[in-house]
């Protein structure tokens, strides 16, 4: 197998060395990497001719010579962590750094550590799942991640284990002299009846950083997972992230994606409700300004009967920013009693901002309830007047209402410390004033 060729593509540079290099790769992983490399080479970078990439251009990435980030010889100094009371895994440029992580006190029956290590030492935990949950099989950046990732995190939670504190995954990108890709890869396996909360944050980098973060989450029967993604970064890195979720019977998944900054962000979230009675709640909030571009692509696939899905994505757009929301609900034949709802609401603070909101329903069962709604608008002048008539000036009134719009999503965060942090982060992005802090 080692003689099989790796297709040539600038973004695949280094894959051959990875497969042939010292230490090698476990057989299953090497094979999946080769397949993924071939798949990426065949797909190439998406162009706007692709239906799913119509509003988000990435071909400019080919203008740069990208290098996959090496394991940093020196550790970056980190700002304060998001959560004081959490298990913490810190990944720098795609490499897990145990020196910065904090894992004591994890209960029995949990593995939390380097994905590359686990693939070698605990293949029985990794092999059944990694790059196996193929809802995004035709997604080129998922293929790129599988071919190219160096390391990342495995969080494996044994059956019946309940994590009482959140697990924080901090993905840190350093600044580099030349264009650099970091490909943190995360695999979370929540065993039967287990329960966990994961807070995934991404910070750092520069305009010459490409962060291709791919996360796979498997919820076995009855598992409960809350997963929050925080993209709160003003350094202009390009984020191409994907989250693939596979749910077993009666499992419950809650996701919150909070995009508060960055340059170009494309976030794909695919959930497959594969066991009867599973439910998925997918919340999102994006705050954009300047020339930011945020694209949220959601795919919720109901493959089993009696599952529930809820999508609530809200956006606040300022400046000349762009947002794309594409929400696809797919109901397979036999997925009767499906209850699927989707809502995308956008608030435009500037006349130069633009939203593309595109709901898609494909229903192949006959006894289902599916609804979707999409709004794009400005602040309600009746509400502005109401607040002003009580003594708040116009700027404060507008801020209060903008906050109120965002709060619906922020208040759904189930980790109090994270919710507070998000409140502050959102408020910090609103212009002015002490007044609004007092009001909310």
């Amino acid at each position, binding site marked *: 197998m080692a003689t099989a060729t790796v297709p040539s593509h600038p973004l695949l540079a280094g894959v051959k060395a990875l497969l042939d290099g010292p230490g090698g790769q476990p057989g299953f992983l090497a094979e999946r990497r080769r397949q993924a490399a071939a798949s990426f080479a065949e797909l190439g970078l998406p162009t706007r001719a692709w239906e799913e990439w119509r509003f988000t251009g990435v071909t400019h990435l080919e203008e740069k010579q990208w290098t996959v980030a090496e394991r940093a010889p020196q550790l970056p100094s980190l700002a304060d962590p998001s959560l004081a009371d959490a298990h913490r895994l810190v990944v720098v440029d795609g490499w897990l750094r145990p020196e910065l992580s904090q894992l004591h006190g994890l209960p029995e029956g949990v593995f939390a550590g380097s994905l590359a290590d686990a693939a070698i030492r605990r293949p029985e935990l990794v092999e059944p799942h990694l790059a196996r949950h193929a809802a995004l099989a035709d997604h080129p950046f998922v293929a790129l991640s599988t071919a190219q990732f160096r390391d990342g995190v495995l969080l494996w939670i044994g059956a019946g284990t309940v994590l009482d504190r959140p697990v924080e995954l901090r993905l840190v990108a350093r600044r580099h002299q030349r264009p650099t890709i970091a490909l943190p890869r995360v695999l979370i396996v929540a065993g039967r009846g287990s329960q966990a909360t994961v807070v995934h944050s991404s910070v750092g980098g520069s305009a010459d950083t490409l962060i291709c973060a791919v996360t796979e989450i498997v919820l076995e029967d009855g598992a409960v997972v809350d997963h929050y993604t925080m993209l709160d970064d003003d350094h202009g890195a390009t984020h191409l992230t994907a989250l693939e979720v596979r749910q077993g019977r009666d499992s419950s998944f809650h996701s919150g994606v909070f995009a508060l900054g960055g340059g170009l962000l494309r976030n794909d979230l695919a959930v497959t409700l594969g066991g009867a009675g599973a439910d998925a709640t997918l919340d999102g909030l994006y705050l954009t300004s300047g020339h930011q571009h945020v694209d949220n692509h959601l795919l919720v696939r109901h493959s089993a009967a009696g599952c529930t899905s809820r999508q609530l994505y809200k956006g606040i757009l300022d400046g000349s920013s762009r947002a794309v929301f594409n929400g696809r609900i797919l109901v397979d034949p036999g997925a009767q009693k499906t209850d699927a709802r989707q809502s995308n609401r956008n608030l435009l603070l500037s006349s130069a901002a633009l939203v593309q909101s595109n709901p898609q329903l494909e229903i192949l069962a006959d006894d289902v309830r599916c609804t979707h709604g999409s709004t794009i608008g400005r602040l309600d002048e009746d509400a502005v007047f*109401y607040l002003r*008539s009580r*003594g*708040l000036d*116009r700027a*404060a009134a507008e801020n209060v209402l903008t*906050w*109120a719009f965002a709060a619906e999503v922020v208040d759904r965060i189930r980790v109090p410390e994270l919710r507070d942090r998000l409140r502050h982060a959102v408020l910090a992005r609103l212009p002015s004033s002490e007044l609004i802090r007092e009001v909310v």
Partner: protein
Amino acid sequence: MSLLELKNLHVAIEGKEILKGIDLSVNAGEVHAIMGPNGSGKSTLAQVLAGREEYEVTAGEVRYRGRNLLELHAEERAREGLFLAFQYPVEIPGVSNTYFLRAALNAIRSHRGEPELDAIDFLKLVRERMQLVKLDESLLKRPVNDGFSGGEKKRNEIFHMAVLEPILAILDETDSGLDIDALKIVADGVNSLRGPDRASLVITHYQRLLNYIVPDFVHVLMDGRIVRSGGRELALHLEEQGYEWLEPEPSAAAVAGR
């Protein structure tokens, strides 16, 4: 000098004239009722006085405490002691009723050069005023009007009024949709604010509220003009006779309150 003085006020929205020359004078210590059929311009009058910018004043003037009211923004009017109880209070999810009210009160107090109320003093005031409108304490913590029943929204308006203690209160059909118990509560709230330095303008479609808030003067607004002014008995007369016997006539501009 009048607290509020309207002279020949003409108001249009989107080119359509709604108010066609209103003269009205309200002194401190008085309660005036403005009655009239639907579409007569009652709510327009309330909104214009509160500073809604969509309405265009095409002629006339409004003086409030000796100043040109029309030059002031809505928030400046509020800080100068004018309050409008909305016919349709707006729901604001995500903003706590208490915190909003505290921000409003402190905006008014700092405009007057008074120190801001701290949380403890504010809560004391709020609890006291809540009694007045028998508002359930849970509505304090909830977002402003969010999920409130119709009656709760109206009582919340009166509660805001009781906390902000306006010099001139304008009630825009606060009585509509209220049962008799809620109506009495609203009336108690308004009556408790009566005083020699304050005045109220009570806009209503029905005479019913005026059994509990006894007005000093009643004006009838029809087709953008005040066609009749009188004392409390005018309201009773309207209750029996309806509005039909009053023909809108341009010459009937009322000499209000005199």
